[in-house]
């Protein structure tokens, strides 16, 4: 491949190219807006205003971003080990069970004990569920993509069964648990700020956002600044080279999936223990798949994941606002845009590269 073999300056590869790809995705989404009979530029203005124009908008944007930080990191960590984890959705769902069990049955404990236990519950259940495809990939060679697709469906069915038959609050129809006790719910950001005398808009944004930021730092240190993280990336880049270097790929594959699943579990923290205060059916609502777009756009770097997550959070919140102003446009537009982002920044990541190489060479020649 002559196109990709050519060198580009780092900023062209890591910033310019992803931005151009994002632009293509946005242009394609603009065409979809045109097809609905609305003006795409008006739509952009409304969305930006809706996402960042008010304290409430920013709160919702960061609340959505929280879920995407968790799933984005989950997908990114697996990517670093050469694994494509499509199962973050199911892992987050199962993690919801871990959180709910703690919050339902250990709520006699004080909050400062429930919190670490719930975090552990989310991480353990998410990691445990991700361990199955991880182990099968490492030891039996089953392709992780297929197994994680299958484990998603098994998770949907299992959680439906558990919610409908076991954990459902007696005497109601909708499959959800009772509300958790106040000491088993994450404090909302507005309540926390009110405690120190600062007044911000009331939104579902909660403590899970702070935990997500800590996870970004944690992943950054683990992947780039430890021997373990290095060995993980070696396995991802070349399993054979890893073997020669004395690294056992199978172990790293399982460990990467454990970490990936634990991170996906963060969605349960944000939704079940944070925003909802109860376990309800289908709470991950596609965030596991959004994580793929977030990781691809963030180039699997924790900081990139943060930026991409906030962007997607803004798209979710802005998209919700859009529906009020432009009834022809639905929030599903954002789902379509996610697909386009995955297509352009993932599948077609290097499409523009040869052209960019040429353009930069011409630019350099002229100088």
């Amino acid at each position, binding site marked *: *491949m002559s196109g990709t073999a050519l060198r580009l300056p780092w900023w062209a590869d890591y910033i310019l190219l992803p931005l151009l790809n994002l632009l293509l995705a946005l242009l394609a989404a603009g065409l*979809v807006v045109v*097809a*609905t*009979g609305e003006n795409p530029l008006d739509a952009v203005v409304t969305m930006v205003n809706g996402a960042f124009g008010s304290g409430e908008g920013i709160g919702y944007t960061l609340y959505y971003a929280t879920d995407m930080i968790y799933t984005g990191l989950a997908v990114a960590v697996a990517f670093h080990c050469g694994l*494509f984890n*499509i199962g973050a959705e199911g892992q987050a769902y199962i993690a919801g069970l871990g959180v709910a069990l703690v919050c339902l049955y250990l709520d006699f404990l004080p909050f400062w004990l429930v919190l670490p236990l719930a975090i552990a519950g989310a991480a353990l259940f998410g990691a445990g569920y991700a361990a*199955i495809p991880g182990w*099968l990939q490492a030891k*039996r*060679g*089953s*392709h992780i*993509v*297929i*197994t994680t*697709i*299958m*484990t998603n*469906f*098994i998770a949907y*069915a*299992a959680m*439906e*069964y558990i919610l409908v*038959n076991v954990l459902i609050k007696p005497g109601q129809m909708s499959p959800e648990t009772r509300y958790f006790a106040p000491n088993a719910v994450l404090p909302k950001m507005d309540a926390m700020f009110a405690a120190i005398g600062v007044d911000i808009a009331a939104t579902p944004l909660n403590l899970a956002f702070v935990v997500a930021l800590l996870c970004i730092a944690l992943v950054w240190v683990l992947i780039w600044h430890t021997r373990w993280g290095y060995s993980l990336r070696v396995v991802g880049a070349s399993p054979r080279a890893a073997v020669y270097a004395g690294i056992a790929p199978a172990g790293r594959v399982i460990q990467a999936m454990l970490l990936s699943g634990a991170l996906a579990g963060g969605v349960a923290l944000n939704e079940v223990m944070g925003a909802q205060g109860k376990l309800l059916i289908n709470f991950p609502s596609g965030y596991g*798949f959004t994580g*793929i*777009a977030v990781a*691809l756009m963030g180039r699997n770097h924790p900081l990139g994941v943060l930026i991409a997550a906030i962007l997607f959070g803004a798209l979710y919140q802005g998209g919700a606002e859009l529906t009020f102003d432009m009834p*022809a*446009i*639905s929030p*599903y*537009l*954002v*789902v*379509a*845009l*996610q*697909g*386009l982002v*995955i*297509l352009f920044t*993932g*599948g*077609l*990541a*290097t*499409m523009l590269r040869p052209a960019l190489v040429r353009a930069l060479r011409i630019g350099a020649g002229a100088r």
Partner: protein
Amino acid sequence: MEQLDQIVPLLAATIRVAVPLILAGIAGLFSERSGVVDVGLEGKMLAGAFAAAAVASITGSVWLGLLAAIGVAGVLGILHGFVCITQRGDQVVSGVAVNILISGLTMTLGLAWFEQGGQTPPLPASARFGVVVLPFSETIGQIPGIGRFYTEVLGGQNILVYPTFALVPLAWWVLGSTRFGLRIRAVGESPAAVDTAGISVVRLRYAAVLIAGALCGVAGAYISTAQGAGFVRDMTGGRGFLALAALVLGKWRPWPTLFGCLLFAALDAVAIRLQGVVLPGIGAVPVEFVQTIPYIMTIILLAGFVGRAIPPKASGLPYVKDR
């Protein structure tokens, strides 16, 4: 006689449920045997379902709807080909992108164009694939036992059912005995060898993804204009992944894939009827468990605990000429 009352509807339901699985399964078969992994079957089916329902409701012609479905899903097949073959992008990423894109796009366009909560207007009987009455149904239907089988299982199905079942021997013959089919398989196992023989890897793989797209389109049209009467959000409901599972179960071969599709369809038909049934000794059967059996089976098979399923050698790998 009472047993017959149970078995005949069960068989009829199995066939109805199996049709889109078989179409998508054979679609995946062509794509993956040529070396292009396709996790986007679900998205292409959904696009087909939407296109068929939308066109059928506007024109009133179910056949134009089918044509539109084949066209739209075919274009998506080509798009997948462009990413995987021409741009050598990641095949799984491309498939996932198609699934998510279509899930959002169908709802966005459906809401904007039809203003019925994302659904297309309900189709009248004239804009759907109706039931085919087989010849001599009246006379053969009188025969006890066989009669009901003839009118309700063999007959009493819509027109898309028959070509679907004919598709399996056709695929078996094409992939097993024709020049084109053998080349498709060769390009999925060893593209370099095919290239050395002076045959275009790119053209073969494009042909395969186009066939896969078209078949997914038919499957989608079946779901929205034969089984259903209009488009509903995410109405393919994971059938594309179930077909993928059947493909793994069938070890990427036509007849075993058909078997997998029929098995999963039968499980589905049984699961619906088991809802709330209390079996002696077991108690109420958890329907959710029956629904997961296909996925659990696929995992077990892939892991090689029982008869290992090995995908085509070159699947998932873009072909690079100068290496």
